């Protein structure tokens, strides 16, 4: 990459360098300008296609606050405890559902991580044992992540019935695709000198992956999986909408029944849980980074 500087007749290196630099800067400015134009164009199209109109927006804003007002609980400061108790009248049940949700996310993340781990090695461009295996594992991962969790959940609810199992499977499949891509990119960046060193002692493909690549990428893998767990806790509370278990199923139920104060109670619980998971995973990830692999 980069231009080679050719001094013109009688020109010294410093001035021919300046000339080349100015040319490069001009080309860069032109590129940036066309990029900005493209961005503006894309934004314009999206506003139009998404029917984002100021009138609709302005008319909708009062509705938004009305709904918030409807679902807000009635809390009087002289009866705060009883009001809170009434608002969270079903707290025990909801907490169990929340734990369910986190467990669905955990199991889905775990299964997805294992599958992504196994597929990431053949899916790595420079490590794959042969072309066919590489092609197949790549396409498999692409398909797994192209379909949203919610769609998988729908399909699995149809096949396995309502409950947490389709939720776990939906998260696992999507996670396999999403993590598989990140994992295989980490593999591709692993040092090939090390790979060659292990290959030179007579290691087979599995042993080469195990000893040359895994130690290099494992900390990254752990960090990515924790990040995915955070995402999956959020996703797990949504996929319940289509009957795939957890707190989402309950939320969908109360929304359908117009049990207004329950809606706000559940949404608040979900937000709290997600924030809590985010913070603890974040902490854990920072501790893991830079820690040596215990292998």
């Amino acid at each position, binding site marked *: 990459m980069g231009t080679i500087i050719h001094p013109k007749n009688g020109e010294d290196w410093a001035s021919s360098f300046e000339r080349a630099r100015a040319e490069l800067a001009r080309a860069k400015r032109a590129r940036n300008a066309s990029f900005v134009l493209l961005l503006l164009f894309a934004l314009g199209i999206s506003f139009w296609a998404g029917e984002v109109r100021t009138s609709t927006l302005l008319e909708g804003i009062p509705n938004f606050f009305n709904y918030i007002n409807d679902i807000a609980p009635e809390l009087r400061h002289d009866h705060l405890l009883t009001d809170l108790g009434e608002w969270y009248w079903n707290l025990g049940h909801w907490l169990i559902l929340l734990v369910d949700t986190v467990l669905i996310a955990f199991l889905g993340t775990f299964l997805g991580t294992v599958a992504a781990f196994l597929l990431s090695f053949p899916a790595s461009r420079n490590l794959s044992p042969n072309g066919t295996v590489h092609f197949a594992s790549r396409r498999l991962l692409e398909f797994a992540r192209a379909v949203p969790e919610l769609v998988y959940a729908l399909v699995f609810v149809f096949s396995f019935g309502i409950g947490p199992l389709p939720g776990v499977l939906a998260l696992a499949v999507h996670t396999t695709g999403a993590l598989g891509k990140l994992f295989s990119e980490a593999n591709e960046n692993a040092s090939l000198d090390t790979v060659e*060193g292990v290959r*030179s002692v007579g*290691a087979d493909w*599995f042993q080469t992956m195990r000893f040359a690549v895994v130690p290099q990428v494992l900390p990254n893998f752990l960090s990515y999986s924790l990040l995915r767990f955070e995402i999956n806790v959020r996703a797990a509370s949504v996929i319940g909408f289509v009957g795939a278990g957890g707190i989402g199923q309950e939320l969908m139920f109360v929304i359908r029944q117009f049990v207004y104060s329950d809606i706000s109670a559940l949404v608040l619980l979900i937000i709290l849980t997600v924030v809590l998971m985010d913070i603890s995973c974040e902490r854990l990830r920072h501790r893991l980074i830079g820690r040596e692999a215990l292998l």
Partner: protein
Amino acid sequence: MLSIKNLHKRYGAATAVNGVTVDIPEGQMVGIIGRSGAGKSTLLRLINRLTDASEGGIVCCGEEVTALSGRALRGWRARCAMIFQQFNLVSRLSVVANVLIGRIAYRSTLPTLFNFFSLEERAMAVRALERLDMAANALKRADALSGGQQQRVAIARALVQEPRLVLADEPIASLDPHNAARVMDALRTINREEGITVLTNLHQVGTAKSYCDRILGMAHGRIVFDGPPEALTLTRVQEIYGAGGEDEEVRQALGLPGQSRPEAAGGACLASA
């Protein structure tokens, strides 16, 4: 022991190794010298089969090395240990784990994947480290060691492979003179004490002359010199390295007086860098 016949390696239009034919008897310590791009690394990689030859053959102890595949190929690689300029250890693993990697070709895949090695194998690894004065560091992480120490770990890994042949690709090019001497001493020791054949690429003529029984000079993928260190005269070195190859190091190695015009030597140095 090792017999190479008419070996070629082509990369597109370029030919890295161009008809190498050479016989190496058991127990010899052979140094390969030649300028950058002469094909030295490629030759060693062809012998270990890290790359496949375009033409020609390698036979070792009656075995057609160039025809091996699968399990037999991995067995061959285990018996012809390789040492690299950049050490190529697994930096996040411990020293002893790196040495044990030298055993994995002798084990079935599954137990090794779970890092199961026998007590004897661990003892073997520690004894190999001990021979290289590295046993105390067995539980350190490989990247916590200096370059010279890492190269000695690499030699220990080669030792537990119980090889008949060790291929070293510029093993001392990244080391300071003190560490370089320790590594070369270690290679000569395993050559003398175990009778392991050693084939090593070297940057410096002096090192090749003082450590090796036999020197091969390569230029443009061909062997242009093959003889004992004493036969390596200034003319021969010039044939290997081309004109201007005789820098200060070479003159010293050949026991010649230094250049009369030091600025000329400096100029040659800059141009060749």
